[in-house]
Structure formats: C-alpha cells, structure tokens
C-alpha cells in the first residue's frame, strides 16, 4: 500500500492556505468576519472661498493625510477651474485649482469620505533633521531663556521636556515670563520655538475636530514632537497631549494649508457629517479604490455575484451530506438530492418548502399509481411524471395566488426532474417494500435536506463562503479527510451495540 504522507501533506496545505487566505482577507482588506457589521464613516466638506481680483488665480490646498483615517472617496468640484490633484509627495498631498480670470466671490469645494483605521500612531518616515535654534527678539530673549532653563531642569528626555513645557504654558498661574512671551506669540509658535531652541524636532500641523453635523469649522493648530521614531501630538492651546479619536490631521506638510494667488480674503471652512455604513461595502470600496480588486468575485456584475452566492453554498451542503453519511451514518435516497432540495428551500423558506415538497410528492405518487397500471416504458413514464409535476406545481401556484398565499408562489423553485425521479423511486419503493419504507427513506432525505438548509441559510455561513473564498479549501480538506475516515459511524455504535462485549 502506498504511503499516505503526500495525502496528509496535501490536506494540511489546503487547510493552512485556506485559513491563511481567509485571515488575510479579514485583516488586510478589512473584510468583516461577521456579517452585518457596521462602521462609522465621516463625510467632510471643505469650502475654500476667496474674492477674485480679475487676475489669473491659483489655489493650492492641502489635503488630509492621516494614518488614522483612510480616504474612501474624494472629489473636488469647481466649475470652470482647472483641477490637479497632486499625490506625489506622501507628506504633502495637495489639490491645485487654476483659472485664467476670477471675478468676485469664488467658492471651491473638496469633499472626502473617511473611515477610521484605528491606527493613531504616526511613525516618522525618516529621521528628521535637527532644527535650527530660533533667534529670539531682544525683548524676549531673557524671559524665554529663563522659562526654557526652568523646564529643562524638570525634565529628563525630549518627551518629558515637551510635556513639562506644554504644562508650563497652560498653567493656571503662569509666570511673568510666560505671560510676557504669550502677549507677543501664539501658544503654538511659542511652544515650537522653545522646542527648536533645544534642538528637538517639532512641526506645526493642522487638524480638524470631527463632530457630527457641524458646519463652518476651522482647522486647529497642533504641534508634532518627534520622539524615538514617532511623532507625538500636542495641543499648546489647551495643554493636552495625544490625540483623541475625533481628530483628523489635515495638513502635516509644515507649509501653509491654503495658498491663493490672484485673490484676496481667502478662507476655508469645513462641515462634516457622520455616517453609518456596512463594513463589508466599505472594505469593497476601499479595495476598489486601492486597485486590489482585480481578481475577486466583487468585480463581477451583480447578477453573476448573486448567482455565485448560491453556487458557493453548495460546498456547505455537500459537506453536511458527507458528514451525515460518513460520520453519522444516515441514509438518503439519492446521494446529493438533499442538497438540491435544500437549495430550493433557500428560495422557498423551510416550512413552505417542506409543505410544498410533501404535497407535490404525495400528489405525484397518486398519479404515478395510475400510470403504473398503464404498462408504460420507464422513460415515457418518467417523462409523464415530469409533465404531471409541472402541472401540479402550476396548480398549486395558481391556488395559492387565488387564496393570497404569497409563500405558495415560491414552489416553482423546486427542480422538477429531481422531483419526478423522487416520485418514481418512492413509488417503486412503495410497491416493493411498503409505505413504511417510503416514509423512512423520504423522511431521511428531508431530514438531511433540512439540516443542509439550516447550515446553508445561516447568515454568517453565507457571509463566509462568499467573502472568504479560502474557506472552500478548508471544506475540501475536511471532505478529503472524511473520505479517509475508517472509524465507526455514529449510528453503527447503536447497531453493533450487542457486539460491544460483556
């Protein structure tokens, strides 16, 4: 006998690659592991307005760049303007509007939909250069030196220096020196200059506080301080450190957020809206926008997608049948007929399906018993049964329509050829072994079909088999493995009970 090693290696490979593919799908593409999962998304509108002077105008506007948020959709609207979105520099995404002549009030819009990624840490792409020390005006020099020296003394590292400094600038009872410095500097600038004085890399960034249904919001200035490969966020205006979930970093370029040439009184306003959307639809949109969409079922037209949703359920039904036959030991009439019946149940729902199936088979058996007296050839008899089955289905559909039972209309989903064969076999079974065996075997098939239906109709299973195709490799591995199972079937334990020894 040949070695089973390659077989087990194959099974293990299938299992591992199936699981890996599914987990990759879930983590890398953010496909939710459970169906119906919802996530929050933010729609942010930026409105840039300025007064045109009749000259050619150029508007350069920084775009949000924040690892904590992923851009799902973005677009800029600006009738009559030339539009370029520049994304070459990873730190400095900008949109550039241009027009030959701008007269009067101009409004330009940029809309973006963002989804939180949960990554609040900002890693530095490269080691920042040590900043040039700030040169203080003569009037501020001593005051600044005293403040810096005092805070420096109370700190141990760059980080603690920044923390202490932020605290000192926002203390309820600030020293004379601080008050003096703040009278001529904004807290942000002051904080930045003092950090630069000690050679600590820091830069000004602007961020937006996201709040549902807010309009006419302005950007808030923050300071990023570099510490051990990471940029940490400080808000010198209120002395807080770190970032809350509702802060969106808009501009980290260190340059101005909005540049307008050929216009005056330029300003930018933000309005925002929180939205709840399906996590699955969102991750599909993200895949689409990232271009990782090429080789997946999602790119099929919707009609084919829904077809595949049905087809991909069959492995589940097949797995159920293999399990119930090989491990449990149930008998079914026709190996995979229960799977086909279960597929129809998905269309008809369980109770309607069961009633419909029993009605059709019962009526079919009655008509078949008449046909059996005619001494027809088997082929023509089955053909006659098929036509009669269609008639029965038509009749039931019509009757249920007349009685206003919309459930009855789904009866047409039963595969007619299968039904005809079922009726034929049941009828022979009836003649050969009596009605008891018909009820037993038919009941067994319906039981397996019902169990297969319950497995196939579970929403999370439907979600998994369509969105995590790797699961099919796992099913394949399980089916192969069960094909090698030489142990006892569950029902054999009962059957062979008398042999179990004293």
């Amino acid at each position, binding site marked *: 006998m040949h070695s089973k090693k390659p077989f087990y290696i194959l099974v293990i490979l299938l299992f591992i690659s199936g699981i890996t593919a599914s987990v990759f799908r879930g983590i890398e593409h953010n496909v939710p592991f459970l169906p119906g999962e919802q996530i929050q998304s933010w729609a942010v509108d930026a409105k840039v307005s300025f007064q045109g002077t009749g000259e050619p105008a150029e508007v350069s506007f920084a775009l949000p760049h924040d690892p904590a948020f992923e851009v799902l959709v973005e677009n800029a609207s600006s009738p009559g303007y030339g539009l370029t979105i520049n994304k070459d520099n990873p730190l400095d995404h900008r949109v550039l509007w241009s027009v030959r002549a701008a007269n009067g009030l101009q409004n330009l819009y940029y809309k973006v939909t963002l989804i939180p990624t949960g990554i609040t840490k900002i890693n530095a792409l490269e080691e920042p250069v040590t900043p040039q020390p700030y040169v203080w005006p003569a009037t501020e020099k001593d005051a600044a030196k005293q403040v810096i020296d005092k805070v420096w003394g109370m700190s141990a590292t760059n980080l603690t220096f920044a923390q202490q400094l932020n605290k000192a600038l926002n203390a309820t009872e600030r020293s004379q020196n601080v008050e003096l410095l703040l009278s001529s500097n904004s807290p942000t600038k002051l904080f930045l200059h003092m950090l630069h004085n000690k050679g600590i890399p820091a830069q000004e960034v602007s961020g937006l506080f996201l709040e549902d249904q807010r309009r006419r919001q302005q950007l808030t200035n923050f300071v990023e301080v570099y510490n051990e490969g990471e940029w940490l966020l400080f808000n010198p205006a209120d002395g807080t450190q770190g970032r809350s979930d509702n802060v969106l970093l808009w501009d980290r370029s260190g340059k101005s957020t909005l540049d307008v040439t050929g216009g005056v009184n330029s300003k930018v306003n933000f309005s925002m809206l929180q939205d709840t959307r399906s996590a699955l639809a969102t991750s599909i949109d993200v895949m689409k926008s990232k271009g990782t969409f090429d080789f997946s079922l999602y790119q099929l037209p919707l009609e084919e997608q829904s077809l595949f949703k049905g087809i991909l359920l069959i492995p589940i039904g097949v797995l159920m049948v293999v399990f119930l036959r090989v491990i449990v030991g149930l008998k079914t009439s026709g190996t995979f007929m229960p799977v086909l019946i279960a597929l129809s149940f998905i269309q008809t729902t369980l109770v309607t399906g069961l009633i419909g199936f029993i009605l059709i088979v019962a009526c079919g058996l009655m008509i078949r018993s008449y046909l059996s007296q005619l001494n027809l050839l*088997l082929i023509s008899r089955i053909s006659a049964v098929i036509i009669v089955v269609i008639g029965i289905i038509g009749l039931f559909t019509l009757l249920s329509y007349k009685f206003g039972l919309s459930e009855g209309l789904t009866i047409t989903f039963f595969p007619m050829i299968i039904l005809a064969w079922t009726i034929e076999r049941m009828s022979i079974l009836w003649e*050969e072994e009596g009605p008891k065996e018909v009820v037993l075997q038919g009941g067994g098939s319906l039981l397996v079909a019902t169990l297969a239906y319950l497995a196939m109709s579970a929403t999370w299973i439907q979600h998994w088999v369509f969105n995590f195709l790797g699961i099919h490799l796992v099913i394949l591995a399980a089916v192969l493995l069960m094909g090698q199972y*030489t142990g006892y079937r569950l029902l054999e334990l009962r*059957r*062979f009970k008398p042999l*179990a*020894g004293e």
Partner: protein
Amino acid sequence: MRLEFANPSLLRKSGVLGMNKRNIDYIGRYNPRKFYKRVDDKLTTKQLAIDNDIAVPALIGVVREQHEIEAIPAMVNEEDGFVIKPSKGSGGKGILVITKVEAGRYFKPNGQEVSHSEIYRHVSNILSGLFSLGGSPDVAIVEGLIQFDPVFDGYSYEGVPDIRLIVYKGFPVMGMLRLSTAASDGKANLHQGAVGVGVDIGTGKGLHAVQFDTPIDVHPDTNKKLTDIEVPHWDFLLNTASKAYEMSEMGYLGTDMVLDKVKGPLLLELNARPGLAIQIANGRGILPYLDHVDSLGNHNMTVSERVEYAKKHFCHSDKL
C-alpha cells in the same frame, strides 16, 4: 425505543468492522474495479460459475429487448415455477418469484395470482434499468425455481433460506444462514426483516441469531430454536465459496448459496459489498479473522487447503 450507543473502543476491541473501514480498507483495496462486472452482473456470474464447474440455478432464458417479453409464457410453459430477476439488481430488488404455473396462470409464494400484464410491466421495468445500479439498461434473467431442501422446514417462512459466506482472500471467514419471515415477506434480506443465524465455519452449526439487528433465540413465525440448526453439505458449501474467489478475483467477497433438494448446493449470486449484519448474527466482530488471513501473507494454498485451514482456525470454539 431507547437510544443506546456502544463505546467505540469496546467495539474495536471486539473486532467489529464498520462500514467506513469496510469500504476503504477491504472493498476499496482488495476488490479491483475491473472485476466488478463479474459479481454485479448476475448473467456474467452465472456464465463464469458454469465455466468453473460451480452449480447454479437453471437458466431458462434471458430477455434483452422489449419485444422478447412476449416469449416468456412459452419459455416457462414446461416449468413448475420460475424466478425473474434483473441481471444487475442489488439488495434483492426486482426479483419476482412464481412458485406455481397452472395452465398459463402464475402464482406467487403467498398464493396471489400474477397477471401477464404485471409480468410484462415488471420485465419492462427491469429492461429500463429501474433496479440496476445507476439506472443503466439491464437484461432480465428467467431462472428455474429452486426446490429447496426440506432440512430447513420449520425454520423458514415461505421463502428460500440462503447461506451467506464471507470469503476473504479465498478463505471463508464467517457464515450466516438467512431465513425469511412473515415480516420479510418471504425475502431473505436482513434489512427487510429476515432472520440471520450465525453459522460456525468449522461445523456448519447455528450459533446465534438476530432479526432487525436484535438478538433472538427462536424463529418469530415458527418458534423453532434457531441455534439448533445444522447446515448440511457444509464442506461443499465452503469449497464452492472458496472457489468463487478464484473465479471472481475479488478479495473481499460475499457468496450467496441455496440448497436444492435435487441439485444440492447452488451458487445464487456473488456480492462485492457484503453487508455487516453477519457480525451481529455471529455475535462477534469479523476483524480478527480478516487480520488472521492477512497475517498469512502470500501463501500458495489450493481451494481445499484453504477450506481445511479455515475450518481449523476460524472455528468459533477456537479462540483467536
């Protein structure tokens, strides 16, 4: 009905063979696909048996085409009774037994008359493949009725008792006598309610009996004690079964034989997928016997040597 499950490790210890293991380790491994026709097609089996000097029930005729059905009455004109069966049937499906032919009228064992049109329809169904595996077109065999040996009188109700032997690599390893009952409607199939009596390979004596997988002591219809049975022509039966191995080249084989009053033991059919109820009828698992045969490795024994070996070692009084 109480649901009682056996502990699988106890079953394994008793050497009980399960369906999955049978399919993979015995049928899948020792029954080559290409030889299945020899056992699945009863007409081929019959031909092979005749070529190998194994006695079989008389062949009255074969019906291959629809129009040949008309010839049946003429065919059976001289017979006292006859059996119509599908050549590729399984599990006793599609077998029609006529025990009495009287002036062109046919009667079943229970005395019920069977009309010509019923025969016509039955044969037509056989030809269309209704009873054959996979529904492939089939032929109908018309066989002479077996005049069964009166030794089993009182043990069988209406039908013909048959003797099932499991032959593993040419060694008869387990035997069972199948007796029809009122519940089985004269048929000898255990799942239809026939009684199975485990028979000692060494002596041909009854050991233990079951109906519907439950041990019983007496025949449900005749109340005769089943373990008193002793099968006559036992050596001959063992030899025939053992010969069927060479003939079919199936490593794991079920042979079904009947005892005819006049012709002695006849080979009825072979089975490449014999059921497992024989273990319950014998009150023990079959695996120790199969393992014993495996332990012999490649041997060069003749049919009679194998039978002698089996009688000596697979005797139930002998502890394995």
